[in-house]
């Protein structure tokens, strides 16, 4: 007599979503702060936001949207039993994540070179709203970049598990890590217009 291992896929996903809701509230709080200070000092925010690099911001948006696609394809492919397609898609996703982080690094580097960082002489001498804008910019994009780093590491780990032939619940693990990755994309979908596109 052998029993098939009990799996509760719906329960697995519910647990992941409950965690994602806490992430939603975490980033929601930062967006709330952004909204309040935008309402208080709109001119300062618009001037400060105009200095961000729209080309790099757009490139990173395209990278994250594309990596969200490749993760979604990886999940479908694993469900269909197409392992090598799954692994290929995961590889592309991790690559997109790394290029995103390199771009982010260049962006921060350029800003810091222009003496724009929390507590810098230029921001202390300028308008208060600009200083708040850049504090929120570094905090929000920094927290987001940490999520990108963690997401990429988890995707890599899942990839090695699948390549190693692990079968027990690997679909659920990939789905949940995939959900985490989509959340990273979701947060950026709001960061991009608020920080880069503001008039």
């Amino acid at each position, binding site marked *: 007599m052998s029993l098939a291992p009990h799996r509760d*896929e*719906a329960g697995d*996903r*519910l647990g992941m*979503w*409950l965690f994602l*809701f806490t992430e*939603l*509230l975490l980033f*929601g*709080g930062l*967006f*709330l702060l952004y*909204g*309040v200070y*935008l*309402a*208080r000092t709109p001119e300062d925010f618009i001037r400060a936001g105009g200095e961000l690099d*729209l080309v790099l911001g*757009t490139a990173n*948006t*395209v990278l994250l*949207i*594309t990596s*969200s*696609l490749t*993760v*979604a*394809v990886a999940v*479908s492919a694993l*469900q*269909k039993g197409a392992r090598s397609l799954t692994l290929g898609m995961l590889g592309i996703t991790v690559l997109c994540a790394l290029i995103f982080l390199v771009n982010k690094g260049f962006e921060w580097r350029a800003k810091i070179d222009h003496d724009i960082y929390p507590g810098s002489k230029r921001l202390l001498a300028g308008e208060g709203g600009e200083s708040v804008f850049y504090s929120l910019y570094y905090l929000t994009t920094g927290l987001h970049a940490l999520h990108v780093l963690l997401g990429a590491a988890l995707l890599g780990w899942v990839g090695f598990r699948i390549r190693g032939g692990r079968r027990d619940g690997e*679909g659920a693990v990939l*789905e949940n890590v995939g*959900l985490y990755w*989509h959340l990273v*994309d*979701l947060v950026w*979908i*709001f960061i*991009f*217009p*608020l920080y880069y*596109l*503001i*008039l």
Partner: protein
Amino acid sequence: MSEQRQTHIIGYGTLVLVWVLLLLLTGTTIAVSRVDLGALHVWAALGIACLKAALVIGIFMHMRYEGRLLRLSLLTALVTLAIFIGLTFFDVLYR
């Protein structure tokens, strides 16, 4: 065997279509941001962002195919967030 499949498999074509829509919406939001709409601009940008978010949550994150429990949980989380933001602005804007 009456056990129902718990997971819906989404076809590659649908996923690629969503990706194309997301790219088009990104282009639209950049184009709109170059037009002077005044205060309307923030709402246009947020509206497009919400549309993109709905696509990601609905298709990429499979929410369209989930059961009532998960959809109601998501609704609860979003309404909670909206109440937070709404009440804060009620205070900030009319103080």
